């Protein structure tokens, strides 16, 4: 074999034969395109006879076409069970290429073909893969448990403090608010948001808005909790129980090539829409809608309503009004149109869900526990006058859609629906005009929803009402009315003259009676404390007036309770007491904290640039803190969720209030002395330093003067006490002297 040697190397054919190359071959095997990626297997096809084949195929092709994945009947193949002469309940569909197939799979998987059949799609190649799967089940490695931060950690604060967020310049800060020594910054980030920040309604999440979409943050270290990719989002709205979120962007959705796909992202069918509904826990997109811009009579587009979709208080339904036509109610979490049809109401303008009161919630919980039916939701809507039809306010049950109460109204120019937050009353503020349409006045139609047949009472007013507000959990409301001719043409620098009135329900009689009117105000905003009783009247957004008035509506409540309710009737409205007046220059917003103890006012740089900043007041109008910060934009109290204490527990606390208050007073006193001790020590130190320095200075000065030898000034003499000598002088002055001869 030596003849074969080249350069001394010896090849041996036998060696080659012995080596096993199979692993390398497997590794570098050419991947043949199996050419089956464009074929899908569709399950859930009705089982049919041969005779119906053509009909079925065209129907299926149509359904595919509707979803934007057109196929021809000749590209479909239906396997047959020849023994029975029927189809096997699945079919193969061939698409032009793999991309089309992928799109069709995304669009049609889970498609309800009819009541009984739902399509399930798979790649043909996947079927093979699944068949070849290892049947023996291997236990998956459990992922190590990562403890997540408690989203409601802030409620466990030992000092029971509330939080608020401020947005200034680029800085977002979350503050603790409590006693002076307990106020501190809890968290701070620069550039946290691009537009503004918002709390979810129960305070669990903080939402920030960015170019790319919305992010939710939570937990004690403020980690990112969820994201919703809605580019150029401008407005957001949470559902009342924080399960869902609605986002809106002025720019219609576009889905460019190469966008990530999945349940959390927009797909082609969402293009052109503006509103998106999301599930907060999963981050999944539920549905998108185009935004409806209502057109007024003269054809100009009016401002869009926000929130565009209105939630029922239990998060079960969300309704959307198409002005003039219908209310569409969607059920969650599927976001399908409830009962597959909208409420067709000709001319409908607006509607509001009835909020659930604490009682309703309790009852609902009991009902669920007992397996009974839960009370239905209610909603109210109104329709304007059309042709001969009067304007009408209707209250209906939902989902049964039964009409509960209707009221016809005449000469209506505008209606507004206000539910009391416990769902006890519905007030319809009706702006009416006289027949000549020259003057405008206002009626308040109040529905007492808790009573049989919903009795209605009307409060007639001569002026137009600019603001209406129910007392939370109360039987009172406040209105701001004005007869100012400047109403309707708001010019810069004009502050309207207004009257503020309080009304209260007369128990037993069932009508609302005027408690008191405060005339000649400039207030344009009513802010009830979330606990009721206290109310703040503010003049906001005005450049000349910025008054805050603090009122207590139950000032002599304790007395009334002692004397019994009979007494109070005679002194109707006597419990209203003015607590204080304050002024926050150029105020733009006023908000109570969730406990109803503090009021925060802010002057936002979004509105003007005069003395931006915020202030916190107590319920009597005493200023607690004030910060003037340029470029200050936003102040928001962190909402609190409903209390977990039962009624019984709450009552117990109220009964033992004295016990608790003593404890708190002790704490307050300790805190005060603590602060002052610290401060006094600090001041003492400063004074000591100063005094030491002064003494040194004086000594040096003395020496220097001596050295200079010019004149040794005697120590600066204390201004000499003028020597006083007290001299008492007795002056006897003889005024008159007469001599009388005393006769014997």
């Amino acid at each position, binding site marked *: 074999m030596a003849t074969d040697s080249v350069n001394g190397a010896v090849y041996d054919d036998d060696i080659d034969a012995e080596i096993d190359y199979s692993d390398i071959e497997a590794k570098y095997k050419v991947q043949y395109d199996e050419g089956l990626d464009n074929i899908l297997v569709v399950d859930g096809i009705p089982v049919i006879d041969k005779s119906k084949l053509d009909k079925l195929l065209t129907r299926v092709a149509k359904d595919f076409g509707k979803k934007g994945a057109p196929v021809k009947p000749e590209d479909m193949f239906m396997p047959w069970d020849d023994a029975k002469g029927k189809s096997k309940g699945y079919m193969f569909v061939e698409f032009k290429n793999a991309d089309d197939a992928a799109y069709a799979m995304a669009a049609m998987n889970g498609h309800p073909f009819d009541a009984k059949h739902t399509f399930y799609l798979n790649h043909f190649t996947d079927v093979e893969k699944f068949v070849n799967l290892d049947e023996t089940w291997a236990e998956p490695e459990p992922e190590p448990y990562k403890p997540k931060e408690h989203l409601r950690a802030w409620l466990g604060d030992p000092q029971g403090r509330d939080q608020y967020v401020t947005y200034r310049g680029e800085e977002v800060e979350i503050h603790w608010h409590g006693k002076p020594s307990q106020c501190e910054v809890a968290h701070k980030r620069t550039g946290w948001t691009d537009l503004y920040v918002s709390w979810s309604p129960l305070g669990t999440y903080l939402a920030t808005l960015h170019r790319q979409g919305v992010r939710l943050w939570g937990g004690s270290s403020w980690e990112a909790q969820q994201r919703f990719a809605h580019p150029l989002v401008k407005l957001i709205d949470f559902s009342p129980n924080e399960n869902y979120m609605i986002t809106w962007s002025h720019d219609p959705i576009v889905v460019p090539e190469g966008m990530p796909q999945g349940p959390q992202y927009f797909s082609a069918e969402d293009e052109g829409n503006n509103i998106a509904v999301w599930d907060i826990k999963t981050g999944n997109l539920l549905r998108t809608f185009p935004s409806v811009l209502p057109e007024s009579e003269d054809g100009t587009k009016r401002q869009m309503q926000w929130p565009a979709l209105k939630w029922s208080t239990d998060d079960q339904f969300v309704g959307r009004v198409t002005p003039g036509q219908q209310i569409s109610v969607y059920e969650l979490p599927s976001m399908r149109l409830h009962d597959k049809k909208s409420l067709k109401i000709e001319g409908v303008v607006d509607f509001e869900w009835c909020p659930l009161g604490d009682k309703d919630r309790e009852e609902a919980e009991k009902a669920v526990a007992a397996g009974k039916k839960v009370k239905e939701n209610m909603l109210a809507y109104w329709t304007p006058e059309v042709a001969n039809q009067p304007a009408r306010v209707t209250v209906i049950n939902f989902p049964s859609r039964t009409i509960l109460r209707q009221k016809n109204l005449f000469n209506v120019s505008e209606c507004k629906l206000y539910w009391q937050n416990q769902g006890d009353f519905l007030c319809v503020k009706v702006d009416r005009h006289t027949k000549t349409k020259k003057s405008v006045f206002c009626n308040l139609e109040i529905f007492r929803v808790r009573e049989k047949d919903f009795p209605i009472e009307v409060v007639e007013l001569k002026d137009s009402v600019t603001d209406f507000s129910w007392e939370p959990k109360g039987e009172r409301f406040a209105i701001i009315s004005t007869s100012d001719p400047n109403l309707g043409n708001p010019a810069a620098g004009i502050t309207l003259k207004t009257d503020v009135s309080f009304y209260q329900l007369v128990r037993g009689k069932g009508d609302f009676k005027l408690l008191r009117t405060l005339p000649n105000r400039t207030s344009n905003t009513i802010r009830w404390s979330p606990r009721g009783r206290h109310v703040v009247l503010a003049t906001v957004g005005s450049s000349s007036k910025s008054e805050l008035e603090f009122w207590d509506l139950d000032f002599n409540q304790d007395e009334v309770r002692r004397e019994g309710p009979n007494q109070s009737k005679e002194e109707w409205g006597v419990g209203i007491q003015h607590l204080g007046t304050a002024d926050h*220059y150029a105020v733009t917003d006023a908000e109570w904290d969730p406990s109803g103890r503090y009021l925060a006012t802010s002057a936002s740089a979004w509105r003007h640039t*005069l*003395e931006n900043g915020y202030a916190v007041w107590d319920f009597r109008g005493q200023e607690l803190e004030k910060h*003037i910060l340029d470029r200050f934009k936003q102040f928001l109290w962190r909402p609190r969720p409903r209390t977990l204490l039962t009624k019984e527990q709450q009552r117990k606390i109220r009964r033992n209030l004295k016990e608790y208050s003593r404890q708190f007073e002790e704490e307050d006193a300790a805190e005060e002395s603590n602060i002052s001790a610290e401060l*006094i020590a600090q*001041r*003492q130190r*400063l*004074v000591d330093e*100063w*005094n030491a*320095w*002064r*003494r040194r*200075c*004086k000594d*040096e*000065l003395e020496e*220097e003067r001596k050295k*200079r030898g*010019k004149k040794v000034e005697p120590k*600066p003499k204390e201004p000499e006490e003028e020597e006083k000598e007290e001299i008492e002088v007795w002056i006897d002055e003889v005024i008159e002297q007469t001599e009388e001869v005393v006769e014997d």
Partner: protein
Amino acid sequence: MRPILLQGHERSLTQIKFNREGDLLFSCSKDHVINVWFSHNGERLGTYDGHNGTVWTIDVDFITHPPLSCIPAVSHTIRSPNVITNPLDSGSAESRFLVSGSADNTMRLWSVQTGKCLYRWEFPTAVKRVAFSEDDQQVVCVTEQRDGTNQSKEPESFFNPTGSKAVVCAFATPNLILTGHESGKVALFDAKTGDEVLNNERAHMDVVTDLQLSPDRTYFITSSKDKTARLHDTKTLQVLKTYQTETPLNSAAIAPGKPYVLLGGGQDAMSVTTTSLRQGKFETRFWHKIFEEEVGRVKGHFGPVNTIAVSPKGDCYASGGEDGFVRVHHFDESYFRAKPYGDLEVEE
């Protein structure tokens, strides 16, 4: 107590000054007039007429027991024969001489009692600040800078402070002159040689607008357009305390007897018309000298406060505003009784 409003000037006030006893108040303004008032009732005692331009500055001597031979000498060597021939009754505590500086390029010496102009010095530029020394032997003045040209050679001890333009000055000791500068610098100069002895370049970030000494001249307060007033050690020029406000400051004074300093200022006259009264912050602000905390405000002027002076006895203060008024406030009884910070003994 209700403030006494002194309406004797037609233009904005430039400086006001109490005499040692605090019974007389001197004021000067842009309307060329120097007024003297009884501080207890606001009655005008008289005027010192003669200046032909804005009177920028005044100072009154401090005589207590002047020896007969003591003749006020100005800037060390300028002796004025007029002064010698007119010796006033000595031995009593009274103010004899008033010195003033004006935009008519003169500095004048007046007899406080008669209102006569005793002597005038001519300068090539306006006189912006004058000050007596502690023993009333010397007067220092700052004249407006005019690029390159030197001031009159007449006073022997004359110097051109190096660097930024001097704005305000005072005698620290008979040998040392304290100056505040446009750049925010505060410096000490030797009165004889004109050498800069010590400086603090970063005393302020903007123009120093006022400089007032403590009664024993061991520390002083300066105000500045950089919205702060500062307390300095005369010896080391170190900043002892800083009072940070929201508006440019025009004047700062030390209240004798109480641990307060008084700050006055407000928005520049130029930009006042563009904002509301409440934004201008034309109040006199009382700050605690040691804790650097604001303790109170006194409203009144409807223009920036240009100058503040506290009576050496500490029983009243006066403020002069851009609005042309002088307001004299006598402290109420409660001012002396109040101890907002408890029983803390603060040395003068």
